């Protein structure tokens, strides 16, 4: 009985800490700045945390997306976003509209550069909409592709119990293009929290781990990663997957 109470207190404390810092478990695709005009794709992706502590174990995020390259250098995405707290079940939490703009032709400049803007319409009465943006950078060096995303998310609307400050993220991926089907790499996924949290490494969620990427049968792209938590608030481990079926119009 006592043990159960302690567990409940620990879970409540962990959830409170995350709410105060504006962070929640979430791993995302590392976006390339390069879009594909004339391509439409259906994509599902998801991630889950693994931790000995019940307060951090089994958190899930997921997304089902329709992505369309509607114009040269412009891609639009419509998504349903799902998540589950460690002790909860997966539920639809937002509808997302996202646009990605590619500034130059791939390889035209020293680095490829793009901008992603997204707006999440919350389906939950106690959660705000969010507006986010990411600077997308990519550089090919030989058979290595390095990609970085620097972004922020801002709550929209009056929700006094939630933070007003923006939440910043940093994502990095380096992959070796061994073949079309198999491209091993490494990813860093960091939720830096609010600007006041910068420099406080252990209060930010940092994950690092191996990932694989590739395209099968010319149409089915995949990504999978397994991560190790590198800071105190991160779960011990996490995993992420993505499947995308692409076609042309």
């Amino acid at each position: 009985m006592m043990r159960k109470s302690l567990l409940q207190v620990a879970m409540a404390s962990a959830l409170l800490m995350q709410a105060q810092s504006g962070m929640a478990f979430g791993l995302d695709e590392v976006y390339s700045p390069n879009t594909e005009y004339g391509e439409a794709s259906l994509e599902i992706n998801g991630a889950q945390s693994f931790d000995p502590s019940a307060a951090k174990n089994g958190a899930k995020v997921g997304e089902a997306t329709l992505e369309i390259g509607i114009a040269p250098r412009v891609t639009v995405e419509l998504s349903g976003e799902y998540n589950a707290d460690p002790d909860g079940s997966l539920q639809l939490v937002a509808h997302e509209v996202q646009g990605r703009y590619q500034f130059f032709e791939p390889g035209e400049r020293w680095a490829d550069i793009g901008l992603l803007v997204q707006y999440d319409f919350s389906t939950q009465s106690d959660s705000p909409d969010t507006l986010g943006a990411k600077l997308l950078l990519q550089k090919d060096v030989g058979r290595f592709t390095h990609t970085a995303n620097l972004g922020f998310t801002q709550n929209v609307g009056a929700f006094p119990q939630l933070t007003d400050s923006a939440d910043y993220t940093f994502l990095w991926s380096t992959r070796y293009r061994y073949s079309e089907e198999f491209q091993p790499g490494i990813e860093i996924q960091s939720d830096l929290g609010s600007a006041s949290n910068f420099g406080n490494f252990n209060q930010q969620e940092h994950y690092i781990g191996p990932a694989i990427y590739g395209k099968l049968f010319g149409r089915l792209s995949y990504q999978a990663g397994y991560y190790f938590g590198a800071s105190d608030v991160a779960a011990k481990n996490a995993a992420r997957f993505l499947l995308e079926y692409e076609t042309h119009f």
Partner: protein
Amino acid sequence: MQKKSLLVAIASLQLLVLGMPARAEDYVLTLKNHQFSPKELVIPAGQKVKITVRNQDPTPAEFESSDLNREKVISGSAEIVVFIGPLDAGRYSFFDDFHRETTNGTIVVK
């Protein structure tokens, strides 16, 4: 002081990314009857090159190469520009993703 450092960082990034346009040598690849011509395109090692891919077929194609990390749809009777390199010497394959078994070629870097 912090604001000044931020401005310097932004200016440096701008110079690095925006201020260095490629000085690319021009090459042309033609796609006709679902065949690339030339089948092997020879380019110099260590240089950025600009390849114009002209699709002379009325149907669309997709220039794609995982070796080069490029993927771009070409409408029928249209052309696209692809920048590649600088590359090490070697052979880099490419293909039309809509006819990948029969429509392909190689970029030979010397």
